[in-house]
């Protein structure tokens, strides 16, 4: 004999109301408690829900519709794998446009307040938009002047809605790849906090995460000039970066180092006649994140964990700090998971990891 916590009639009534969508939240909680504690009630609930759903309209899809879905699927995948990636990029871009719109409202208000209080100043003020790319995501945008910008995970970019005056200036926290539209008169300036990068029309990558010890600029083509943002310093010289060079600004030393990027000698001698001929841009082969390829280029475990946190949106905790000095190399496709990366590391290094929702704890094995 089963004993009902609820009277049978009351239970039936609750279930029916739940199915019709007229049961209030308080009563839903009672229903949930009842079915969690009473097997008979759970059975009744599940069976009635099953029948209710099964007898509803539109539960089943028509064969023709199903076929149609397959055609869509085919278009996205079989024909061109890339279009799929683009599609998802477009989607992300749209979400960020929404964010941007929110910020426009915010800045718009600030702008109006400022204009009211400064009554008759005729200076034209440009409105700034801010794009925030969360961890685990990447995005791209095109500025009013035609400059294309790819934004890596965990990045903030502040940019004017349109460029006014004699410079084009954006503010970057995080990593971005720029393809700057050419303009001989108006330089394009990336303000990376402690350092400023000024260009006329080139392609380059800037990495400026607040928590990193350095700011890196890699030039793919064209010419850029760099300067520390140390205004009081009269010795603040300008540095010129050539293609395939990397500028590293070391925050603690307030100094810029310039290094040449070297071509990696492939291990396999047999297949390197292609590389010895026309040299593909070394810099471009290092900056791969915008192709959705995660490149680990002889980096320390500490740097890699930061990179992985941003790339995949996980938090990584390292239990044994002796691991941090190990270095790794590797390339991972956009569809490879963080676990595959960790498994690859595990091949050469004795680590183990424990996953708890969005946190990964790594320890020595």
């Amino acid at each position: 004999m089963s004993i009902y916590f609820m009277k049978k009639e009351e239970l039936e009534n609750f279930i029916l109301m739940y199915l019709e969508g007229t049961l209030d939240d308080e009563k839903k909680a009672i229903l949930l408690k009842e079915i969690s504690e009473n097997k008979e009630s759970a059975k009744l609930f599940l069976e009635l829900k099953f029948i209710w759903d099964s007898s509803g309209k539109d539960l089943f899809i028509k064969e023709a519709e199903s076929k149609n879905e397959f055609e869509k699927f085919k278009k996205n995948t079989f024909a061109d794998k890339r279009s799929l990636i683009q599609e998802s990029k477009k989607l992300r871009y749209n979400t960020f446009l929404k964010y941007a719109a929110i910020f426009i409202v915010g800045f718009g208000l600030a702008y109006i307040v400022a204009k009211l209080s400064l009554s008759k100043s005729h200076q034209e003020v440009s409105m700034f938009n801010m794009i925030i790319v969360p961890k685990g995501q990447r995005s791209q945008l095109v500025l009013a002047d035609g400059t294309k910008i790819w934004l890596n995970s965990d990045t903030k970019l502040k940019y004017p809605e349109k460029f006014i005056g004699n410079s084009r200036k954006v503010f970057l926290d995080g990593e971005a790849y720029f393809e700057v539209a050419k303009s001989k008169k108006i330089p394009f300036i990336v303000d990376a906090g402690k350092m400023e990068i000024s260009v006329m029309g080139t392609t380059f990558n800037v990495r400026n995460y607040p928590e990193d010890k350095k700011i890196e600029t890699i030039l793919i083509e064209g010419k850029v000039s760099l300067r520390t943002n140390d205004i009081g310093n009269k010795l603040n010289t300008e540095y010129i970066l050539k293609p395939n060079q990397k500028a590293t600004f070391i925050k603690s030393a307030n100094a810029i180092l310039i290094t040449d990027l070297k071509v990696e000698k492939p291990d396999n001698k047999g297949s390197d006649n292609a590389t010895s001929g026309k040299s593909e841009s070394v810099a471009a082969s290092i900056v791969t994140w915008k192709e959705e390829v995660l490149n680990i280029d002889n980096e320390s475990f500490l740097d890699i964990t930061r990179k992985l946190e941003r790339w995949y949106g996980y938090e990584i905790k390292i239990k044994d700090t002796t691991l941090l000095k190990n270095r790794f190399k590797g390339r991972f496709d956009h569809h490879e998971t963080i676990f595959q990366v960790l498994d690859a590391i595990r091949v050469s290094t004795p680590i183990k990891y424990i996953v708890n929702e969005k946190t990964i704890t790594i320890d020595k094995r």
Partner: protein
Amino acid sequence: MKISDTKINDILKANDNFAFEQIFKTYHSKLFAFARRFVKDKESARQLIMDVFLNLWNQHEKIELINNIESYLIVCTRNQCLNYIRSKKDKLKYYSETDLKLIEYELNYYQSPQIIDNLFAEKLQEEIDKAILKLPPQQQTVIKLSRIDGLTSGEIAQKLELSKRTVETHIYAALKFLKENLKPFIY
């Protein structure tokens, strides 16, 4: 039609478009019907199932991980449903925390292969339609207004000039009758 799992692994590994089509056609409508039990907005359910197949397609190179294609697809669909409901994106329904828990409770139930098989039974819709025709006329009218036109008991009561209590009794009786008639699908 049921494709054996070994064959599916071969198909996916071989990167064979035609064969993938077979998988899609075998499971698409089933997964859709499954998702529709939890996702009220039809368009969203459609997109959600598309994502399930895109995931499968993107995974095809490392398919060793997939032992049983059907459970793999079910798990994917369950997760997609949960994520979707948690994100509160359904245009047709607002989900409270309690709603989420009830749905999770229900989704957890759909785990044993046998239950899932029944859920997928191709004859289910046919049998439901047949059983509805066997109901007494009044119950038939009421259940159709409820399940096809989506009216609540209150609305049906008004329309048919019956008391709400009577309508509820009819719906309940009809559901019970269907439940008895569809027993082989429930267990």
